[in-house]
C-alpha cells in the first residue's frame, strides 16, 4: 500500500509551468490578469488575422486596455435618465399621433358624426366667458385625451365632468354611458362581486364549524342596502378618471349606498392615488377610488342643473307605471324655445335639477330593507326574538326636474348665486350660476345651451365646521336583576329578629325530636 514516488514528487517541469501560470493569472490593480489580457489579444489576432501582426501588437494591446477603461467609466456614471418633463412630453406627443391615425379610419367608416366626443373647445370658450378657465393648452390636451377614451371604448355618451384636486395629483373626470350591451367590464364586475360574496359566506360557515367559539355578539348589523343597477340612479353613468392627460383612463367602480352614506359623514381631501386607503371615522368601506366615486355621485346630484324646459319627461312612460313610482328618465325637449339670459339670472325657478336626488338611504329609488328573503325569514323565526319592527316609511326626495328655488338654505346662505358674465354687453352675455354648497360647481348657460362643470376639492361647504360623529353607545353588560345586584346590609334589629326566629325554630325542632324519641321508646315497649 505504498504510494508511487511519481505521485509524491511531481514532475519539476510541470511544477514550473504551474507556478508560471499562477503568476500570470494573478490579477493586477485594474482587476485584469496578464493571462486574460494575452488570451484576449491572441484571440483577437487570430480572428482578425492582420497581415502585420507583429507591428500592430502594441497598438492592439493598448486598444484592449482602453476598451476596458471605457467600460469602467460607464459603470461609474450611469446613463442619464430622461427628466420627467421629457417623459410627460412624450406621453402628450402620443396623444397627437394616435388622434390623427384613428381619425382617418373613422372617416372611412362614416363614424365621425356618430362619435359621442363632446366639443371641448366650445365648452372651454363658454366657461372662459363665465370666468372659469381650463387653460388654453390644457383644453387641447384634455380634448385629445377624451378623444382617446371615446376611440377605445364603445360609448354612447361622453362628457367632461370636471377636475378634482388632490394633494399629490389631480383627477380629470369623464362621465360616460356605454352603448347598450357593450359594457363588458360591468358584466364581469357583477359576476366577480357575486363570487366574492359567495366566498365570504363560505368562510363564515367554516368559522362556525370550528370548536370553542367565543360567545356570539347579539349585535345585528343593519341590513345592507343593495346597490343600484348599472344604468340606474346613482350608477346611471360610468366615470373614468386620469391623473394626468396622456395617462390611461381608469374606470371607477360602481357606488354603493353604504359608501354614499359614509361619505356624507366624513370630510377628506383626495390624495391623487386611487389605491390610497381612506382612514376616517366612521370607517369608509373602500379605497379612495370608491370615495371619489361617491363624491362624484353626490356632487352630480347636487349641482347638475339645466334651464327649465330643456329636458322633459319621456311621454311613453310615467302614466302606465304605478302611482308613487318616481319618473327617472328624461329626454331633450325638441321644442325648447330657450329662456332669456336675464330671466335665468334673476330667478332660480328657471333652473331645474336634472339628476335625481339621493335619498338619506344612499339610493335614488327607495328600497324597503325590512322585506326579507325567505331564508332570512326562516332564520328569524328560529331565533324567536323577533322584535316588532315598525313598517319602515319610504323616504321620498324631490322629484326629477325640481326647480332650484326649492333647494334648502343652509345656515342662512342661499345655495346658489347667479350673475351675468358681462354686465357691459348684457345682450350677448351668458348666465353663470355657481353653487355655494359645493364650491367649484359652475353652470354656464346661453339662452339655448348650457354646460356644467366642477373644479374643486370635492368637499361640501359646511359653515359650522366639521365634527366627526360620536361613537355609538356601548352595549349594556347584563340586564339588571336581583341575582346580580348587591343586597342591603341588615340592621341590628333585623339581625336579632332573625336570630330569635332561628332559635325558636331550633327549639321547636328539638322538642319534636324528643317527642319522637319518646314515641319510639313506647313502640319498643
Amino acid at each position, binding site marked *: 500500500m505504498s504510494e508511487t514516488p511519481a505521485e509524491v514528487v511531481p514532475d519539476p517541469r510541470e511544477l514550473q509551468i504551474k507556478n508560471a501560470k499562477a503568476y500570470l493569472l494573478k490579477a493586477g490593480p485594474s482587476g485584469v490578469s496578464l493571462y486574460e489580457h494575452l488570451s484576449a489579444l491572441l484571440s483577437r489576432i487570430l480572428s482578425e488575422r492582420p497581415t502585420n501582426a507583429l507591428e500592430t501588437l502594441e497598438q492592439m494591446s493598448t486598444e484592449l486596455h482602453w476598451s476596458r477603461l471605457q467600460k469602467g467609466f460607464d459603470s461609474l456614471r450611469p446613463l442619464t435618465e430622461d*427628466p*420627467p*418633463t421629457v417623459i*410627460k*412630453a412624450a406621453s*402628450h406627443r402620443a396623444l397627437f399621433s394616435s388622434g390623427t391615425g384613428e381619425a382617418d379610419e373613422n372617416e372611412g367608416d362614416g363614424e365621425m358624426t356618430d362619435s359621442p366626443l363632446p366639443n371641448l373647445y366650445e365648452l372651454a370658450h363658454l366657461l*372662459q*366667458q*363665465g*370666468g*372659469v*378657465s*381650463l*387653460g*388654453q*393648452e*390644457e383644453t387641447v*390636451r384634455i380634448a385629445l385625451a377624451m378623444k382617446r377614451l371615446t376611440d377605445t371604448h364603445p360609448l354612447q355618451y361622453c362628457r367632461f365632468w370636471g*377636475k378634482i*384636486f*388632490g*394633494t*399629490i*395629483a*389631480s383627477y380629470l373626470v369623464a362621465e360616460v354611458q356605454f352603448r347598450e350591451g357593450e359594457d363588458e367590464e360591468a358584466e364581469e364586475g357583477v359576476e366577480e362581486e357575486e363570487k366574492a360574496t359567495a366566498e365570504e359566506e363560505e368562510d363564515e360557515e367554516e368559522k362556525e364549524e370550528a370548536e370553542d367559539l367565543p360567545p356570539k355578539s347579539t349585535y345585528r348589523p343593519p341590513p345592507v342596502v343593495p346597490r343600484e343597477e348599472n344604468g340606474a340612479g346613482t350608477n346611471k353613468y360610468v366615470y373614468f378618471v386620469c391623473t394626468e392627460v396622456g395617462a390611461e383612463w381608469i374606470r371607477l367602480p360602481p357606488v354603493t349606498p353604504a359608501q354614499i352614506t359614509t361619505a356624507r359623514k*366624513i*370630510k*377628506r*381631501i383626495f390624495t391623487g392615488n386611487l389605491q390610497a386607503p381612506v382612514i*376616517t371615522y366612521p370607517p369608509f368601506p373602500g379605497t379612495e377610488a370608491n370615495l371619489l366615486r361617491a363624491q362624484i355621485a353626490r356632487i352630480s346630484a347636487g349641482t347638475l342643473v339645466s334651464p327649465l324646459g330643456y329636458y322633459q319627461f319621456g311621454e311613453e312612460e310615467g302614466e302606465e307605471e304605478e302611482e308613487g313610482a318616481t319618473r327617472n328618465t328624461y329626454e331633450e325637449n325638441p321644442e325648447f324655445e330657450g329662456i332669456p339670459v336675464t330671466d335665468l339670472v334673476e330667478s332660480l325657478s328657471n333652473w331645474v335639477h336634472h339628476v335625481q336626488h339621493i335619498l338619506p338611504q344612499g339610493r335614488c329609488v327607495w328600497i324597503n330593507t325590512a322585506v326579507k328573503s325567505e331564508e332570512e325569514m326562516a332564520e328569524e323565526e328560529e331565533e324567536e326574538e323577533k322584535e316588532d319592527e315598525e313598517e319602515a316609511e319610504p323616504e321620498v326626495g324631490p322629484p326629477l326636474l325640481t326647480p332650484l328655488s326649492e333647494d334648502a338654505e343652509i*345656515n*342662512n*346662505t*342661499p345655495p346658489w*348665486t347667479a*350673475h351675468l*358674465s*358681462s*354686465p*357691459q*354687453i348684457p345682450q350677448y352675455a351668458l348666465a353663470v350660476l*355657481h353653487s*355655494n354648497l359645493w*364650491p*367649484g360647481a*359652475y353652470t354656464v348657460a346661453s339662452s339655448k345651451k348650457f354646460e356644467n362643470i366642477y*373644479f*374643486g*376639492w370635492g*368637499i361640501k*361647504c*359646511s*359653515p*359650522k*365646521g*366639521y365634527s*366627526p360623529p360620536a361613537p355609538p353607545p356601548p352595549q349594556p353588560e347584563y340586564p339588571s336583576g336581583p341575582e346580580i345586584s348587591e343586597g342591603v346590609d341588615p340592621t341590628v334589629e333585623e339581625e336579632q329578629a332573625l336570630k330569635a326566629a332561628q332559635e325558636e325554630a331550633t327549639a321547636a325542632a328539638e322538642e319534636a325530636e324528643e317527642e319522637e324519641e319518646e314515641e319510639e321508646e313506647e313502640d319498643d315497649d
Partner: protein
Amino acid sequence: MDAASLYMSQELVAGCGVSPEQRAALSSSLRLLQRDMRLSRVFFWGKILGVRGDYYIAQGTEGGEQLRGRRSFYSLNCLDWALLPPPTADVIREAELIKGCFIGDPAHEYQQTAWKKVGEGSAATVEEVTNHIKEESRLVATIALIDREAAVAPRGAFIKNPLGQVNINHSFRGLTVSEAKKMSSFFHFTPTLIPKKKSLLEKADQDPAVDFLDSLEHDVPKGCWSLQLEQGSSVVILRSLLWLGMTFYHVPLTPQHGYIYIGNGERNIDLPFMI
C-alpha cells in the same frame, strides 16, 4: 401694473378666475389706480366670492419696499377701487369669529355676540356683548390673514438690502426643477413675527440677504400644502389646503411667479380631519 402676471395666472391656474371682459377692465383700471395712488407696483391679488357679489382685490406697493406697507384695494366691478384701511390686531381678532360666506355688500353688518368678563376675582361675571362688524372690516382682516398664512414667494425672488428693505431681486432667474420640488425653496411672503431658532449647521448654508423669511417646510399641520407639477411638468403649482383657493405658481427657470386667491374667504378649520 403687472398685466403679465394676471395673464399668466389665468393660463396656468386651472379653475375659476376672471373672464376676459374683467381682465380687460382690470388691466386699464389698475393702471389708473397706480397713477392715482402713486404706487410703484400694482398687482391683482385675487377674488373673494360673496353670495350677492364678488370682491376683487388688488394690492400695491410704494417705493422699492415689497413686503411691508402693502396697500390693499377692493372693487366690486373691477373698475372703481376703494382703499382698505390697514389691519389692526383688534379687527382681525373680531373678524376671525365670523363664519359663513361673504355677502358682497361692504356695508353689511355682522352681529357677533361675544362674552366679556366683568369684575375681578370671585365677583367676576360674564356679560354678553354684541359686536357689530362691517363686512369691509372682515375683508381687511381676511386679506391680512391670508397674506400672513398663505402668501408665498420662491427663494431668491426677493432680496433684503442693507437698509432692511425688501426689494425685488432682478437677478432672480427662477428655481431649477429639482429645487422647485422641495418645500424648503418656498417662503412665506410675510414679515417673520416669530423667528424660528435655527441650528448653527442650518445657519451656515444661509444667505442673510435671501433667507430672511420662513420656509413652508415646517408648517403645521404637516401636509397643509399641495405641491404639484402641472401642464406637462412645465409649471409648479402650490395650493394651500388651509386657505382653499390660494394658488401659487412658478415656472421653473424663469422669473415668473405669483399667487392668486379665489375662494370664499374662509379658513379651512376642518383641515386636521381631512389629511
